Structure formats: structure tokens, C-alpha cells
């Protein structure tokens, strides 16, 4: 039986449900919160409630947003003829961090997974097809897993015949890796996708 007060024990249990947070880390965070000022604790609690109340998914691209349609979908400076298809909202964040891509996004909400019974009706595929009327290019930025490959092939088959260019982001070696430790598939893909230097 725990010697901790019930309220503290409850907080530890709640925090330990977070991804990557074990019992020990949850304890450390709880004691930190206990020592911090009331204002700090209230600000944190308020922030948590706010994301639950204010963040929704954009009805166009299914990315997370406080407004509908989201800021990316309504930004006139962005290229509205290109859609980058990603698995999850976190992927939008990763691509936005590069600052390179200036088109629109579409979040699928996962990938087709025959082994796990995830089919096209479980993903935002129909909404993507409805958005294609003025689109010139669809970029598939889906994880290069077996399920990701199936999803990319399926989407390119659905889009085929619509006079839309369908591309996939390059696959190969990450920056800073030692070539000798790369697996054969990655190396093959890197060789297939080689480009001219000059």
C-alpha cells in the first residue's frame, strides 16, 4: 500500500499513462509540480484543458487546428495546386520544420494495414479524392514501411487517370550515417534514387 497521499498518488498514476513516462519519471514530475507555485500548476492544468477544448481537426486536410479550415488550408501564399499526403499530424509538423514545402497537406490518419485489418474506410481517403479537382501534384510522404508502400500504391492507383502528377518522397540514407551499417534495401533505394551532383 502506498504511503503517499491519495491526490499525489492519483497524479502519479495519471502522468505515468503518458507515452515514454514510467512510474519513476511520473513521481519526479509530480514532486516537481508539488513544489512549484499554484500559478504554475494552474497554468499547466489550463493548457491541458485548452487543447482538449480548442483543438479540432480541419475538415479539409484533417490536420489539427484551432480554426476550421486550418491556417495552412486558407493561406493564400501557399501553393494550392500541390497536396502532400502524410500519415499523422506530427508528420505535417516535421515537414513544416524544413521550411522547404509550401503546398497543402492531407492527413490520412494512418495507413492501410492488411495484417491489422485497417482498410480504406478507416482512413481519410475519400476526403482526399474530393480535394483533387484543382490539384496538379500529389506528393506521397508516407512512412516507407510495408503498409506504407501498400498505401502509396493504392493511392496512386486511385489518382491514376486524373491527369495529376503523383510523386513519392525519396528514400535512402539519413545524413550522418555510416554506409557500412545501412541495410541492403535502404542502400538499394538510395542507389535507385541517385541524383546528379552538378
Amino acid at each position, binding site marked *: 500500500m502506498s504511503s503517499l497521499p491519495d491526490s499525489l498518488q492519483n497524479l502519479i498514476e495519471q502522468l505515468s499513462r503518458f507515452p515514454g513516462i514510467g512510474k519513476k519519471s511520473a513521481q519526479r514530475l509530480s514532486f516537481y509540480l508539488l513544489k512549484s507555485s499554484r500559478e504554475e500548476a494552474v497554468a499547466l492544468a489550463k493548457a491541458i484543458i485548452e487543447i482538449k477544448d480548442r483543438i479540432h481537426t480541419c475538415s479539409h486536410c484533417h490536420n489539427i487546428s484551432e480554426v476550421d479550415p486550418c491556417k495552412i488550408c486558407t493561406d493564400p501564399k501557399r501553393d494550392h495546386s500541390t497536396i502532400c499526403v502524410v500519415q499523422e499530424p506530427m508528420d505535417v509538423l516535421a515537414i513544416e520544420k524544413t521550411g522547404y514545402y509550401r503546398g497543402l497537406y492531407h492527413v490520412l490518419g494512418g495507413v492501410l494495414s492488411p*495484417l491489422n485489418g485497417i482498410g480504406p474506410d478507416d482512413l481519410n481517403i475519400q476526403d482526399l479524392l474530393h480535394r483533387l479537382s484543382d490539384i496538379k501534384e500529389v506528393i506521397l510522404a508516407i512512412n516507407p514501411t510495408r503498409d506504407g508502400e501498400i498505401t502509396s500504391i493504392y493511392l496512386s492507383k486511385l489518382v491514376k487517370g486524373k491527369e495529376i502528377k503523383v510523386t513519392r518522397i525519396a528514400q535512402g540514407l539519413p545524413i550522418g550515417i555510416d554506409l557500412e551499417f545501412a*541495410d541492403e534495401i535502404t542502400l538499394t533505394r538510395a542507389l535507385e534514387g541517385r541524383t546528379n551532383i552538378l
Partner: protein
Amino acid sequence: MTVIKTEALVLKSIPFKETSSIVQLYTKEKGKVSVIAKGARRLKSPFRGYLEPLSYVEVIYYHKPTREIQTLSKIEFIQTFFQNSTEITDTAYAMAVMECIDKFIHGHQKDERIFLLMVNVMKFMDSNRDFIKEAFIYFLLKISATLGYKTDFSTCSVCKQPLKSALYEPSTGRIICRRCADFQERVLLLRDEILDYMRILEKVDLEAGLPKFQLAKPSIDVIDFLVSYISYHLDFPVKLKSLEILANLEFNIEEK
């Protein structure tokens, strides 16, 4: 704790915690084994790329009999199947082989025949894409026999008379002649051409190739029949999600 080095096929891989994966393998030495690949989803992990379903690999892992999940130490490719496939159907059938092993085999049932059957069928499927459905039917027949539920397409399981066309009773798992059928139960008609094809497949050598499966008349789905047959004998219902999804995907593409 012992160190095991063995050939294996990757059945499936599930993300675990922030950066790790739990990988289900069918190994030559120990049968079905789950291993944790720590940090496998990190960008520079040495496991990255090896853990996708349909990979034929050599693994080294730490084995502790009291543990359900073993710890992966090293992994290398022997072969990867369907690497450049642009056909969803091909990959779906290959994945259905992995799904069958995952669902039909429980516990650490070591059987080298199952391992070799999987490897041979995967190799055949990969290099004979036009015969992928035939290879899957062949796999179902062989795995059924290996698990001890060999189908008899020659004689009625009740009166033991030779079969021409036959009926399959899903509720009893029996293949019977029309005279012995109790039509109170639901039955599936196995036409003579289906029986003939099954008899050929039972004897055929995979290396010599498979005959094409073409029926003159519309018939029951042979794969559904075989899965139902195995399912009855295993005593639990089996549904192959890979093939369900495949049917759905094909329908959507045709509808487009």
C-alpha cells in the same frame, strides 16, 4: 539465458513505446518467437529496415525460457520478398501467408517443415507473380496437412465411397458425397473440377510449377473453403484480414 542464432521470417512488427518494436518471427529453430528490437525506430538504428513483414532474415537473440518476449541482438537479410511490387494483390497474398502462420500456430510450436513450406511458398510467389493465388491455395493445403488435418478429396468421409463432386459441411468439417449429406446443415458444393485441382495440388512439386486455377463454372471461393476447413479443425474461427482488405481495395479501384 542462451544465445540463439537462427533463420526466420518476419510475420509482423508492432511499435512499442517511443522507439522500439516488438517483432513476431517464425524461426527455423524455435518456431514462433516474439522479440523486442530496442530503439529499432530510431533513425540510425541497426535494426531499421529489417523488421518489415515478408523479410527472410538471420537473427541472433537472447533467449530466456521464462520470458514471453526475447531480446533481439543482431539481424541480417537473407532475402526480402516483394520488394518492388506495385501490385497490392501480390503483397496481400504474401501477407496472408504470414497472417495464417500467426493465427494457425499458437505457442512455441517448432516445426521445420512449416518454416521450409513458408520459405518455399514465398520464394515461389515472389518469382511467379502470375500464380500467386494458386501458390496460396497450395500453401493452405500443405499447412493443413502439416498441422495434421490433411484433406481427403478422394473418398466420402462418411461412406468411404469415391467422390466425384462433393459437399463440404462447415459445421462438421467433413467432405462428403451427396448421398451422405444431411441437408438440414449448410453445405458448400465442391464441383468435380475443384476436387480435381486439389488432388493435383496435393501431389505437385512446387519447384516444377503450379497449374493455373481456372474454373469453367462459377463456384465457391476455394480459399474461403480451405480457411473454413482449417478453422473447424483448429477449433477457433479464423478470418484472414489481409484478404478481406484486398477484396475491399480491388473493389474501390474498379469502382473508380
